[in-house]
């Protein structure tokens, strides 16, 4: 996998380094990647649905016709 470097404050790096000792994370980079992925997933989960009210009504009509609603 391709990677890129980003900078974090020294104090934060030291705190993470201390936190991951004895954990499943092999490096500070692993830990930071994990936390960022979790955060991104959480943000994506809050994304709004992208279909209109009219489209939603059409879908409900089909669901009723099939006996799901």
């Amino acid at each position: 996998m391709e990677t890129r470097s980003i900078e974090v404050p020294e104090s934060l790096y030291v705190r993470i380094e201390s936190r991951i000792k004895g954990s499943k994370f092999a490096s500070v980079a692993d830990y930071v990647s994990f936390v960022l992925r979790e955060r991104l997933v959480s943000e994506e989960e809050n994304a709004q649905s992208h279909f209109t009210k009219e489209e939603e009504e059409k879908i409900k009509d089909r669901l009723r016709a099939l006996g799901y609603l």
Partner: protein
Amino acid sequence: MISPHGGRLVDRTIPFDKKEETVHEAAKLSQIEVNPDLARDVENIAFGAFSPLEGFLGQADYDSVIHTKRLRSDLVWTIPILLDASKTEVANIKTGDTVALVDSSRLPFALLAVDEVYGYKKKELAEQVYGTTDPAHPGVAKTSTMKEFLVGGKIRLIDLLFDEFQRFRLRPVETRVLFKEKGWRTVVGFQTRNIPHIGHEYVQKTALTFVDGLFINPVIGKKKSGDFKDEVILDAYTTLLKNYYLKDKTVLAILRTEMRYAGPREAIFHAIVRKNFGCTHFVVGRDHAGVGKYYAPYAAQEIFEEFPDLGIIPLFFRSFFYCNKCQSVVNEKICPHDPSERIDFSGTKLRGTLRNGETAPKELIRPEVAEALQRWKEPFVE
């Protein structure tokens, strides 16, 4: 509502008012013939079941998926979705072209905007995806019959293919509306390729205890010889749900794709697809999507540790069995009795019972389901 994989539900269908002109356009294009299972995957891409994919993988994504189990974008993706094409088919195709995807009757049902045509190594593909190059593995066998080239690019679906199971077919956008209407905030997805026995029912209902709704989503598509036919699986499930499940808490709809028998990788893929359907949880049992003895019994559960960013919660279950002493369905974590007291929910044993025209014991399968199965003269794939 849980977000689709990658944050957006893909829609690659051509609007109704553009269909006629697109069909005319497609008739003038170069064609690539796709088999029925691949055609279903074109539909799955178009409907967003395979979000974030918008088409077939290009080379960089192909390499990334088979080696790192992620797309180039770093999103988890474990099964490469590929369009193979013959030397003759790619002879007149170049990057930037649009080609028509046709079924065996040569009717165009989708368009593909070609990003690239590239070669690949079948042995490497099989080894990475299936963990073996044994030709007896159905996935390896299928890989060996693939055409010489791969074509990457985005698709657009012109028209739905005929589907005898249309009644049970819902798109992710539809299941999402359905779950919302039912007031389900949490939904557990259950993948199956088999008829339901008591062990399945126990797993499903145990999982349902912790969430708002249960989404039973059988895979309908090419299976191996000896598996139950699709119509038999649906008949069995319809019968079971009618007699033993709360209607407001359960939805049965099919997933039109083939079984890959890729074990751990396919378990992740199955979870991603159910996330796109709106599931927040996903059941992973013993030897999920496995075949023969190619994968360790719980490898399909262990692989989830690699993907903390998957975005759907796996629910791991051990193998269930009926214990004569407990007089109930239990598993090895909770039953203290000798293994000789167990009646295993063996699919092989169940198939043997049915083949011999015998009635399966009620500890193994619900009597109504057993009756439904006995009405089928040829319940198995040849």
